């Protein structure tokens, strides 16, 4: 078996099969001999043996920071690796802009809102505002996206009208309040209104997001996609490009 076809591997320090790794961590104990022993014990339990505490530094009262090098006795079986694939590729803002510009040849229009009585704009603002979330800029930052953020407490007829006026390619709706399943009722009302107002081929892509949605309920709610907790603007932008441009052209 040649090197690049190996099924079982170990970490590599400077020799094949040496299993060497380096970790750093903090323990909530003052720095002394016992603390260093505790760090070795933790490293041993993580599968490192022998473990060398190469650096220990007291931090404030009752905390010590450690850097530990050592040989880890775990093996990695490459045939047993399982990864969950996203069903669309994650693109950078630049790539999103390029695809829209070259293949759609106009700005992609996105209309967003919190519907019903929900006044929590945290979600929709995190996705749409330039400010964004977790270091990622929101959709307003994408040069080739035209974003209309209607804000909070938008009625469904207002949303449909705005989507028509802005020739929306996609409608993003955020729902945080879940009292008496308000988020589900509101979403169904919204998707029904779009079905009624526009023929199938002309309807914008309908997307809802919020911390309490089950991402598998798209059919039941009549929407194209559901995004749950922790979704970033980059994921939404990548999905828009995938659903409206890449996939559509491929199947058309």
């Amino acid at each position, binding site marked *: 078996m040649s090197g690049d076809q190996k099924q079982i591997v170990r970490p590599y320090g400077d020799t094949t099969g040496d299993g060497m790794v380096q970790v750093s*961590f*903090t323990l909530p104990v003052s720095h002394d001999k016992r603390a260093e022993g505790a760090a070795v014990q933790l490293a041993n339990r993580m599968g490192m043996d022998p473990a060398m505490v190469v650096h220990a530094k007291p931090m404030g009262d009752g905390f010590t*920071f450690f850097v530990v090098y050592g040989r880890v006795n775990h093996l990695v079986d490459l045939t047993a690796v399982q990864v969950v694939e996203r069903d669309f590729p994650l693109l950078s803002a630049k790539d999103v802009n390029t695809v829209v510009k070259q293949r759609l040849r106009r700005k992609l229009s996105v209309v967003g809102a919190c519907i019903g009585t929900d006044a929590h704009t*945290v979600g929709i*603002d995190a996705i749409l*505002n330039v*400010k964004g*979330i977790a*270091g990622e800029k929101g959709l307003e*930052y994408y040069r080739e996206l035209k974003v209309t953020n209607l804000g909070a407490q938008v009625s469904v007829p207002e949303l449909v009208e705005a989507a028509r006026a802005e020739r929306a390619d996609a409608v993003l709706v955020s729902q945080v309040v879940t009292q008496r399943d308000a988020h589900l009722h509101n979403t169904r009302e919204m998707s029904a209104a779009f079905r009624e107002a526009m023929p199938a081929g002309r309807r914008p892509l309908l997307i809802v997001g919020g911390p309490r949605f089950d991402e598998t309920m798209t059919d039941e709610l009549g929407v194209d996609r559901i995004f749950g907790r922790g979704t970033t603007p980059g994921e939404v932008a990548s999905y828009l490009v995938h659903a409206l441009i890449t996939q559509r052209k491929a199947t058309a």
Partner: protein
Amino acid sequence: MTGKLDLDPVLVARARELARRAGQPVVDLARSHTTVSVERAVLRLAGVTGADPDGIPWVNRLVDAVVADVGLGHGVAVPVFDALAREGITDVTLLAQKAAAGSVRFALPTGRAATAARSAARRAVGAGIRRIDRRRAERDRLVKRHGDPAQRPWIYLIVATGDIYEDIPQAQAAARAGADVIAVIRSTGQSLLDYVPEGATREGFAGTYATQENFRLMRAALDESSKELGRYVRLTNYASGLCMPEMAALAGLERLDMMLNDSMYGILFRDINPIRTFVDQRFSRQVHARAGIIINTGEDNYLTTADAVDEAHTVTVSQLLNEFFAHEAGLADWQLGLGHAFEINPEVPESFRLELAHALLARELFPDAPLKWMPPTKHMTGDVFRGNLLDGFFNLAGALTGQGILLVGMMTEAVVTPWLSDRDIALQNVRYVLGAAGGLHEDFVPAPGGFIRRRANQVLGEALDLLERIGEQTLLTAIAEGTFGIMKRPADRGKGLAGVAAHEADYCNPATEILEAAA
């Protein structure tokens, strides 16, 4: 001017004149309008406190009630103090409660009743402003007793757990480890709340709510730390978003020391209505001026969306505008923590020399302002080892160019909210650089005709061109057309517009009267 860059004083004076010309129409607009948040700040200074059982502050309920009866354009002070006299009570919070219950009607008094209401309002608001004055004097005393940090730049560190009672020990630990300034990041989305939450809070999204009680708790904790450490540890929060004026008032009342306060950030990054922002900003800066608070402006944000080399001049333009608006509102140079950032892509050839040119340009243009130097964020990738090196160069640039306030960069930027050990490593980085090269700005004079001088002069030239272009239209048009960043923000759109009104002929705001009389 210290003259390390050989800037042409005629061009520098021209840049300031153009900034004044661009900013003056906005000031005129701010002087002729009010907002619900300005009026709520006035009521807070007049002594309205607390919130209803749903957590909506009584100042909101009271302003809403006044607006429903007589509108916003007269200011709320006179109708409120007129109603107080008619009801025969002295407690404004009690009046707010009655108004919320619908048992008080508001009117615009005339003649003797109007004069009485005006002077009662002025007395009550004056008492609030005197409390701010006492807090400022208290700060002066404590700084004298405990002393300022031994070195410049001051070391600025962020805490943000969401729980004020977790923030406190973290802030105290950070101060012990060398932080001179503690900033408590706000919960995501607070800037878009049109009210200030009440009380001590233990839950937030990626930050801790800014409330008067949280301000008080943290300031008290840092007073303990100041005493323990023998240096005055400063506290920072945010006067931004829809409640900018109220945040400024609460910061003054609770002796915060610095406040984030940018003239355009809310417009560009939060889509807050431009007029609302400029009106709120002017009032908040007047309060900051009175309270002896150092403002931090937000130019670093432009560089997170735009290219740090191509758009370097937009930082300079924004700094000049922020300076103009700040001076106009009564702030002194020592209170201007003008922002800028180390955000050039490290793959760009000579990126560090470009950073030095930009940082030194800011230093030379604003020699008496403390300048807030912001660490790399955009090009921090999760490679923590490279990130730590980049932060070291950022710290070195700060030392070489004499920055006033250095926000400590974290190698785990874009990975996690900083761990205890991340902060410790980051502070070790700062201590090493300042210990090894803290005085290097004395020796660092870029060569005449060299790369750094040429680059700095080029950026100044581009800033002048942009200011000339803004001057041909107006600042509001420039913002509407997307001159800053890439966002187009028309003056008749954006959040918070409903809370703006033009002054009526009898508009009365005792806070502005007192603050402007002193200036």
